[in-house]
């Protein structure tokens, strides 16, 4: 046997941490980790030191103190005698209100604009292009301010509705008044009030609301069952039974019966003193914020929808046409279900953006959580760090909830690989 030179592993030297590929990646990971931790340590340490130097502590006790300020829009009962915590909760609900309204409206606007941008009608397609480009390329804050300024400057003050020959008049059969402060809309009242469910902490839900919700959900479930039955019949006989009247009936008849039972009627707003009372005054801040968020996010969603539709190969629609499907059916049954797979993931981030962008509300005096907890409460109590940390937590949790919900939806529509 001849001696074979077996290359022995060279002894470990520190320089190998840099020059040996086996160790190099590990070395850099350790260094980066140490740097990141050092930065985090420095930030925390600096904060603690500076707070100590100022003689400030980190304490959430202020949340249980009297708030002392009023909020224009309160979804739950709130007075200036309530705590900062309740003020923050009112702000959170206001954030949710504008976010949910915004997400729904932006989706509708976005889908319409996205589909219309692909229209064969030259004028409609170009108009939608102008809309998308105008809203996508101008900062949201400017749109919010512009919409708000238009409301403030163009609409008449409530005073203008006064007198025998008023300068302004209410619309929709004297039920809605557009003013430069708010839109006064009628409220609902019941002659046969069933009372309310008390959830504690002065939060109540009317039994009538619960009854309507139950009626709608039950109606929807029955409608699904009718559709499933029609599908079965179609599968067996090839003829789909006419079900639209049954679907319509289960969705509407229970609600109509409830309206009759509770004696539901509208109370229109009336001008009394300085302002409209009796109805519901929807602040212009909310309307302006909602409109601007809708149009701005809608422009992005339109592009997402357009991209999703263009991602479906032309062969799909040609095949559908070859089977004799009309264009509307082709879109609903063939193109959109496939396009949704492309559309949903970017749509999630648009919803998240909209929710976070709603924190610009203070620009138009809409008191969302940034306006209450992060604005007046922060300023009156001087608890900057606590308020900001709390607010970041709230937005984080909201974002994660939206993400989780949309991911569930995405899992349902995505390509099923069997």
């Amino acid at each position: 046997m001849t001696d074979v030179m077996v290359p022995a592993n060279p002894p470990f030297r520190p320089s190998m941490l840099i020059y040996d590929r086996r160790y190099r990646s590990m070395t850099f990971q350790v260094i980066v980790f140490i740097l990141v931790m050092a930065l985090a340590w420095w930030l925390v340490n600096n904060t603690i030191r500076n707070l100590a130097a100022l003689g400030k502590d980190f304490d959430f006790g202020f949340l249980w103190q009297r708030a002392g300020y009023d909020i224009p829009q309160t979804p739950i009962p709130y007075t200036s005698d309530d705590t900062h915590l309740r003020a923050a909760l009112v702000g959170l609900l206001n954030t949710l209100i504008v976010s949910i309204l915004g997400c729904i409206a932006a989706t509708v606007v976005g889908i319409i604009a996205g589909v219309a941008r692909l229209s064969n009608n030259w004028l409609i397609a170009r108009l939608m292009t102008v809309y998308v480009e105008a809203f996508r390329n101008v900062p949201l804050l400017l749109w919010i301010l512009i919409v708000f300024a238009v409301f403030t400057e163009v609409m008449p003050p409530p005073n203008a509705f006064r007198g025998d020959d008023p300068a302004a008049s209410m619309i929709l059969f004297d039920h809605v008044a557009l003013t430069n402060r708010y839109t006064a809309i009628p409220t609902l009242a019941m002659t046969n009030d069933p009372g309310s469910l008390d959830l504690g902490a002065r939060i109540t839900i009317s039994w009538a609301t619960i009854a309507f919700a139950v009626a709608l959900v039950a109606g929807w479930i029955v409608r699904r069952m009718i559709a499933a039955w029609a599908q079965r019949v179609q599968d067996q006989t090839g003829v789909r039974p006419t079900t639209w009247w049954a679907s319509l009936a289960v969705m509407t008849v229970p609600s109509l019966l409830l309206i009759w039972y509770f004696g539901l009627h509208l109370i229109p707003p009336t001008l009394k003193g300085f302002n409209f009372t009796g109805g519901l005054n929807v602040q212009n801040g909310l309307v302006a914020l909602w409109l601007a968020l809708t149009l701005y996010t809608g422009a992005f969603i339109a592009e997402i929808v357009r991209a999703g539709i263009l991602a479906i190969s032309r062969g799909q629609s040609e095949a559908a046409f070859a089977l004799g499907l009309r264009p509307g059916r082709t879109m609903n049954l063939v193109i959109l279900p496939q396009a949704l797979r492309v559309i949903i993931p970017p749509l999630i981030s648009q919803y998240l953006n909209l929710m976070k962008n709603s924190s610009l509300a203070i620009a138009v005096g809409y008191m969302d959580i940034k306006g209450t907890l992060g604005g007046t409460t922060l300023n009156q109590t001087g608890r900057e760090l606590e308020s900001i940390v709390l607010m970041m937590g709230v937005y984080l949790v909201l974002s994660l909830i939206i993400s989780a919900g949309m991911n569930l939806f995405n899992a349902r529509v995505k390509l099923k690989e069997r």
Partner: protein
Amino acid sequence: MKTSVFLGSMAAGALMAGAGMADTLADVKARGELNCGVNTGLVGFAAPDANGNWTGFDVDFCKAVAAAVLGDPAKVKYVPTTGQTRFTALSSGEVDLLARNSTWTFSRDTDLKLDFIGVNYYDGQGFMVNKDLGVTSAKELDGATICIQTGTTTELNLADYFKANNMTYQPVNIDSNAEGEQQYMAGACDAYTTDASGLAATRAAFADPESHIILPEIISKEPLGPAVRHGDSNWGDIARWTLYALIAAEEYGITSKNLEELAKSSQNPEVQRLLGVTDDLGAMIGLDKDWAKRAIAASGNYGEIFAANIGEQTPIGLARGLNAQWTQGGLMYAMPFR
């Protein structure tokens, strides 16, 4: 090796940042400039003029402090702050001194860790309405929509006042005086409420000041004063005694015009001490002999500053009232320079 050096320098940096908070005087001197927090724009108190130079009642106090500390009233960097950002700007060290018509209250002085160094304007909260509204008293404002700046004491006073009088109102929250003006002028609120001096200043900027009235009710005490960070007593002393120097100068008849002459000729021992002719008071607060002289020379004494910015000869037209010298029946009273 490198890492530990880096960590060490960061630790040192953190230490410096912590220590740096405590000696504002040294910081200002090293920087060669006073960072002064002022209003974003309230004519008469602090607003940039057509050439972009800041002028106003609060601005002149910044100038006096800069003159006393740095020897040059122009060495001020004006940091515009809103009602919401002002105290954070001060406690974070962004500004050395806050001269922004801010009300001295218990919780601000204690819990917010500020030190108010005195009162430069005794004010109270009022309401402004359009004459066409036909309202003559704040008690008639039940159900009205009222514009209010967020993050101010006026916001809390408003809630208390309407509650105490068993009235309701709709608040319209706004961020700055300019925004409030715009909303009020457009009729988006029936009344605008803030400190009476602020109302007068706002009204003076209107095209038709006569068609707006300030209601007679003053619903709160609003002692407005400059503030510094809690914990640096020496810097607080400098700001406090600069204010007293301006007030005392008016009491003793020292103006920006006769300043030099009085320094030479005055036989009044208090004037001699104030102007650094005899005792060296400046050394006790870390400044030189002439600090008060320079502060008064910057824009004149308290009375001159008042008259030039918000007095009866200006469009704002505020009477001295509570802000007259104690010898004239007012509340302005400088502690003795001794």
